[in-house]
């Protein structure tokens, strides 16, 4: 193993940045200070946004939020290693990555409010974003389906000889889904240029990873598909970046897919609809709080003399302003036009939908119509 990554296909867990902000002996961060600052800022913004959105949901201003509390290093580290031409298939906890890839905060919040400016045209639940401009796919609720899509996308890049690597995220629960099986098997057979990341955050709603599978590790599953498989500390930004970077380089060189099991922890409930007290003891959270991915990077930056409380205050203050404005704008924006209900079912509006549309536009409105 080198400091830059791991070429071992084993159940060893790659670790670089310790919880106290120091570096494992013989390792190196693999990122410049400026890069780490950039990623730190993105992680902090992601977490602030998470907290704000939970509040908005509690206030009844948005319907739902599903966040990435505690998983920021996994999400942002893997997104960060992707090159501009690369393509990302999200699960549903990765809005932070969409923002990192160029989706605007406003556009994301438009989705959270399901307004008429939302790129998904208010058709999907909050956090079910789409961001083609950021080379970021469309979030779907059914677990696992995006894995096979990502493999098909990567395969099509290989068939067309495009130097594009495809990234896909999914949870530990998703490894039980049919589409994990299909996606991994196709990835192995066709040796597609993809990075498949399992955010092993310990839970699938109320079911712990041990209730999901009896395998010794999740990475082991990848090997049984003939896919190179590695593990890293998912709360260690440097380890995530190192593992991800090597995977992208390999895929780009035609050396096939990598399956990365990132060991992290879901610090919140499953979503704003969930109350984890029904199934999880608070004790379990404690050790993970000590492994917080953001605090760790901050400690390293402070050690480098590159960060301090003042900068935090500045970051938080300016993001707060930015977020408030975007929320206000998203909340005020008009709902989607009624007629848009019928668009995009097909490329062209067919006769039966024209008829249904016209009837709706003519007809009575629900009581208390907004």
């Amino acid at each position, binding site marked *: 193993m080198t400091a830059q990554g791991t070429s071992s296909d084993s159940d060893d867990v790659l670790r670089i940045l310790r919880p106290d902000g120091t570096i494992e002996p013989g390792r190196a961060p693999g990122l410049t200070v400026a890069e780490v600052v950039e990623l730190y800022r993105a992680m902090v913004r992601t977490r602030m946004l998470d907290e704000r959105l939970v509040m908005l949901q509690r206030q009844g201003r948005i319907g739902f939020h599903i966040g990435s509390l505690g998983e920021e290093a996994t999400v942002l580290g893997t997104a960060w290693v992707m090159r501009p031409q690369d393509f990302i298939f999200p699960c549903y906890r990765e809005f932070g990555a969409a923002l990192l890839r160029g989706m605007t905060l406003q556009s994301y919040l438009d989705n959270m409010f399901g307004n008429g400016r939302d790129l998904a045209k208010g*058709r999907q639940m909050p956090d079910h974003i789409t961001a083609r401009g950021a080379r970021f796919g469309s979030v779907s*609720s059914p*677990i696992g389906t995006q894995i096979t899509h990502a493999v098909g996308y990567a395969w099509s890049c290989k068939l067309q000889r495009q130097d594009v690597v495809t990234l896909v995220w999914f949870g530990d629960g998703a490894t039980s889904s049919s589409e994990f099986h299909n996606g991994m098997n196709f990835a192995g057979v066709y040796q597609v240029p993809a990075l498949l990341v399992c955010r092993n955050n310990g839970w699938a709603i109320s079911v712990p990873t041990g209730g999901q599978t009896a395998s010794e590790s999740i990475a082991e599953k990848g090997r049984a598909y003939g896919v190179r498989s590695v593990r890293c500390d998912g709360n260690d930004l440097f380890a995530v970046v190192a593992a991800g970077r090597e995977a992208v380089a390999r895929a780009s060189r035609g050396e096939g897919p990598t399956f990365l099991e990132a060991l992290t922890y879901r610090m919140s409930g499953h979503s704003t609809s969930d109350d984890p007290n029904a199934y999880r003891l608070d004790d379990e959270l404690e050790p993970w709080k000590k492994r917080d991915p953001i605090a760790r990077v901050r400690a390293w930056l402070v050690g480098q003399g590159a960060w301090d409380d003042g900068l935090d205050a500045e970051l938080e203050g300016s993001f707060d302003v930015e977020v408030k404005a975007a929320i206000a704008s998203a909340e005020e924006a008009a709902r989607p036009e009624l007629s848009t209900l019928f668009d995009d079912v097909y490329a062209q509006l067919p006769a039966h939908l024209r008829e249904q549309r016209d009837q709706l536009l003519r007809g009575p409105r629900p*009581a208390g119509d907004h």
Partner: protein
Amino acid sequence: MARMNMVQAVNDGLRVEMRRDSRIVVLGEDVAKLGGVFRVTQGLQKEFGEDRVIDTPLAEGGIIGAAVGMAMNGLVPVPEIQFSDFIFPAYDQIVSEVAKLRYRSGGEFSSKMVIRTPVGGGIRGGHYHSQSPESLFIHVAGLKVVCPSNPHDAKGLLISSIRDPDPVLFFEPKRIYRAAKGEVPEGDYEVPLSSAAVVREGTQVTVIAWGAMLYEALEAARQAEAEGVSAEVIDLRTLWPIDLDTLSASVRKTGRLVVVHEAPKTCGFGAEIVSLMLERAFWHLAAPPVRVTGFDTPFPYTLEMEYLPLAHRILPAILETARV
């Protein structure tokens, strides 16, 4: 009798039957420790233990496939699918195996089970937490399909479904999980399958609905009354096999038919009901039957109240049909 909502009534029905019949096993995602994301199975694991109330991996095909094997060995599985939108990974098991096992084995085996799953819109669930896929199961020979609209029926129909020898899809309308409340008898009772209920008598139009939309149909019927039109409202309760006699008696009487459902119109169950009523009551029809349904689009998020066939869309259908 106790006042309960739908969640409590289904929970009570499960409890009553599980006490009576030790072969019953509840399994699914998050059903045990958490008691289900809607808390329908809350407390069951505590009462019946880890061998009878089981959290499974995230795999609907696995849940239903395993239930088939259990049923073949004499257990009575009651698998839960967390949302009926997520039943499709199990669709092959349901359509190819559950529905056909008795037939293809010449009656040697059966896959008696009750698949419980929340259905329908109105909870701001968007594409994948709102759909109503009933017609995709009614088309498949060998399945029974049930959808209660109130706590009393929910418990009684569930008990009947569990005792029925055939596989039953038990759709629970999630929009009214907590909103629909009513008196529920204690202990053990059945509401027979394949028996519709005339919940409002009327003379001029027959309105057929089920699940959450029943309340919209009733509301529209009340409003129609104010406009001088008398509508009879039928709660279908069991979608398949259908209670043809109750339906055709009503349609023969009124000569007019409005069918309401949340699912998209095209190839929805409304088309079948209309066609069946034509076969039975064509010469009694004074106006073309009307379907008031979800649109032929995926289920939307922001515009869901515009998408659903609520009272404001049912009312004009009743009035127009009555005035033909």
